[in-house]
């Protein structure tokens, strides 16, 4: 599957005037879903979180200031917060129910069986941390600049650069291991 170049870069430059919410949602929905999919490695969960993200965004739309950044940055900040809230509540639920950690993690981290050809990459990604997958999603998949990625992820630009480098090295090693095993 070939995806077009990130639409938000072509069609969503820093707006001179405040855009409409509908227009922003339509333009950036794909980017939000892909970001969440990479972070969670759970496609159905990513779509649910994306829906929750836009519900939050429409409530807080009056707070969005075009002078502070592009709409996509604002949306992904909300998406990140939504995902974090979900992870926190999941963690609390697990502690509360005291399920066997490996069984639960295996169940939630296992990617949905899809007919995607890149199972090796999917499996290797599942072995990275959420933070590493987030950086890959922001810098590689969605092609944000370091400064914007740092703003979304709540990190410094240097932390983003070094984190991305570590994530790519780790991913390559995992991919290399699989090839060797294969």
């Amino acid at each position, binding site marked *: *599957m070939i*995806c077009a170049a990130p639409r938000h870069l072509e069609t969503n430059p820093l707006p001179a005037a405040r855009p*409409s*919410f*509908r227009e922003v*949602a*339509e333009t950036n*929905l*794909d980017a*939000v*879903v*892909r970001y969440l*999919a*990479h972070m969670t490695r759970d*496609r159905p969960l990513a*779509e649910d979180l*994306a*829906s929750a993200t*836009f*519900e939050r965004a*429409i*409530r*807080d*739309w*009056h*707070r*969005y*200031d075009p002078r*502070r950044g592009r709409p996509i940055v604002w949306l992904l900040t909300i998406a990140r917060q939504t995902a*974090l809230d979900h*992870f*926190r509540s999941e*963690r609390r639920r697990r502690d509360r129910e005291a399920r066997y950690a490996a069984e639960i*993690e295996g169940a939630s*981290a296992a990617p949905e069986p899809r007919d*995607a050809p*890149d199972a090796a*990459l*999917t499996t290797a*990604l*599942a*072995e990275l*941390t*959420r*933070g590493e997958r*987030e950086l890959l999603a922001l*810098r*590689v*998949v969605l092609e944000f600049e*370091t400064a914007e990625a740092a703003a979304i992820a709540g990190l410094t630009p240097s932390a983003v*650069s*070094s984190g*991305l*480098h570590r994530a*790519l*090295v780790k*991913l*390559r090693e995992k*991919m*290399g291991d699989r090839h060797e095993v294969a």
Partner: protein
Amino acid sequence: MRSPELTPERVAELLAGATPNDAAELDLLALAGRLRTLEPGAPDGLRTRVAALGEPPAIDRRGPAGWLAGRRGRRSGRRAAFLAAPALAAGLAIVLLAPSGILDGSDSGPRAKQPAAELAARASGGDGAGATAGLEAAPAPSAADAAAVDQAVPGGALPPATEPGRAQELIARTTVGVPTLEDLSSATARAMRQVRDLGGFTVRSDYSVPSGEEGRSELVVKVPTGRVDQALAGFSELGTVLSQEARLRDLTARITRRAGVATRLRGELRALRARAASTPSPELDAQIAAVERRLARALRAERALIARTELATVHLTITSGAEAPETDNQFAAALRRGWDRLSGVLAALLAAAVLLVPIGLLLAAVGAGWRSWRRRERSLVMGRS
């Protein structure tokens, strides 16, 4: 074969479109391409759900809701709170401290707007034409009341507590400046003589000479209320008046209440005595004695209140040397009052700061701890697979 390590800077360059130099860099770009194509966009169902959200409701930014909503993101509320906090603290401090008089400044404050002699004249039933209402001022007592007061010199008969009338307690403060220590000594003696001549007496006298020509004499005198204007006029002639203020406190309601209590107790006493005359008993005698004691206490309290209205209290301060008299004109007096007000407000703000800084520091520490804990928790969550 393992590829050589790429630096973070080189990774950033390659992602930005730099030409790869070797197989490792080509490999990296290929991996990036695979990552980009791994996840598709939103499915149609999700697209429909998001489109169904529509547009958010419009907020009228002219109204309070629009102002509160703000346009500057999540931090607008916090920013507004930080800006409003000092104003709220100042307002709270002023409300709490105003009753203590800290905002009123010195003796040349608003209480001196009405010349003390005018208030004194009103209290004694003199000509108060044109005088506006003072802080605790009440309508001037009638001529009959004034006469009754004039007659009520210390040691004389007390007026009957049957008819409620206007009874006011007058407290005046006067500061007079004289050039030298010799003048201070003679002025003090003259003041005490004047008080005696008017039928009053000195309650307290403090005389101090800290150094050189600087001296201070503080007198607290009692003067019949009807003659306090004469006393103040006499004090004004001792030197230059630096400040003057007078306060009237209406005790009519309290005296009336005391009189009512006494009347009730007299009635109770009469009834008991009538019963005892027809049916004497030790219990009735005990009750009569108890009521008599209560009646005596009530009458003493009533007399004490009346005595406060019969004699005015004047605080006279005479200074010399460094506290030498200044020529007081209206402009200077207005400036002084303005400065007193400003210093009062600044004192209130300082008091608010002293009160609120420890609380603010505690809240800041709690907030910092909370943010640190949230940051750790986020790292923990994002560090999991």
